[in-house]
């Protein structure tokens, strides 16, 4: 019984480690480019999905796509 409990504990620790490592690696990755703005001078500005501004755009855009314009 003690042996089984020990193995379960080890498995749990391993699973936790994998989840934590995935979260850490994902945090460092750049988000998907979701917004592209072209200014009047021809320059382009891109916002990623993991930025606050990018999320502001996509939150509204999602609703607009749902109901149409």
């Amino acid at each position, binding site marked *: 019984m003690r042996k089984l409990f020990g193995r379960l504990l080890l498995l749990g620790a391993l699973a936790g480690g994998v989840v934590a490592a995935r979260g850490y690696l994902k945090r460092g990755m750049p988000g*998907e*480019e*979701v*917004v*592209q*703005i*072209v*200014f*009047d*001078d021809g*320059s382009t*500005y891109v*916002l990623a999905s993991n930025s606050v*501004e990018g999320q*502001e*755009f*996509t939150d*509204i*855009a*999602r*609703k*607009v*796509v*749902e*109901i*149409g*314009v």
Partner: protein
Amino acid sequence: MAETGGAGSTENLDRVLADLRALSGDIASCSVLSKDGELLASSHGEGVDRERVAAMVAALVNLAERVARENDKEHASQVRVKAEGGHVLLVRLDAGDALAATTGPDARVGLVLYDMRNARGEVEKVLEGGREA
């Protein structure tokens, strides 16, 4: 539907939007929004909350203008937003009005924007005629 320049202007704007949709099959819906956030014309029929649509498109236009100001630019002339379920595309017209369109997720967005830019002149001409009337 348009309130700028009376019924003739409305019909002309509706015709331009219908032509744009016919030209660009990827467009699910399109509309023209005034600088003041008023929906001048829309490809939508009755039953759609026009005020809500206008408010949401105006919010996107305002966000884009804010980004432009933050980057020391005068205006955002084109905006492309990828969202769950599709894209929202905006093209700025003269005098601050906007041409807006939505597409599905697999649309050829570059091509749609090209068609929208080509339709811009026609929309501006109709709006200008409506303002002069």
